[in-house]
């Protein structure tokens, strides 16, 4: 099956709604911190998990390239770059905001996931409407 532009349009519209929901939903209660975790063990788990997930993402992107037509693949990958940059910038600004001292809660992983998904969908929409050379 080849992923068409119409399919991508619908998918990213749904993703935009999901991203907005993640940002605006009530924050869940914080998970209990487990003190007994060795920091080195935690670091090792994070490192191994990152390698596994990155390998999975590389494999997934290869599958995308084969299954999506060239135009859709370029739309999706260019929009993903926008999502990464937006997520890094917004996390840095939000996390270091002076408003944190005035009661603005620090960003949760759900908030950041929402920002990433929403900005990915917005990037897709921007390139879809304005084109890559805008």
């Amino acid at each position, binding site marked *: 099956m*080849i992923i*068409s*532009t*119409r399919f991508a349009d619908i998918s990213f519209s749904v993703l935009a709604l999901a991203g907005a929901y993640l940002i605006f939903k009530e924050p869940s209660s914080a998970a209990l911190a487990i003190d007994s975790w060795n920091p080195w063990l935690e670091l090792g788990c994070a490192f191994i998990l990152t390698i596994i997930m990155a390998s999975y993402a590389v494999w997934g992107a290869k599958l995308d390239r084969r299954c999506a*037509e*060239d*135009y*859709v693949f*370029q739309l999706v990958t260019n929009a993903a770059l926008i999502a990464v940059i937006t997520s890094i910038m917004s996390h840095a600004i939000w996390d270091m905001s002076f408003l944190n001292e005035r009661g603005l809660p620090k960003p949760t992983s759900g908030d950041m996931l929402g920002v990433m998904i929403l900005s990915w969908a917005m990037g897709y929409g921007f390139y879809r409407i*304005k*084109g*890559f*050379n*805008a």
Partner: protein
Amino acid sequence: MKNNLKVLRAMRDWSQAELAGHLDVSRQAINAIETGKYDPSLPLAFKIARLFEQNIEDIFDDEFAGE
């Protein structure tokens, strides 16, 4: 990148959907190429050139040539 895909398509009296069918891409992709919103990949550019029996540089205008 400017191109004369619309002219070539008109010469064969094809709709965007028909050209998309020949190239195995979506109509939206053809529209995006014709309006200059998207530059096709090299494999797709070769496919277009083969279909219209022309060289790539005769279809796509290299705006950076001579710089």
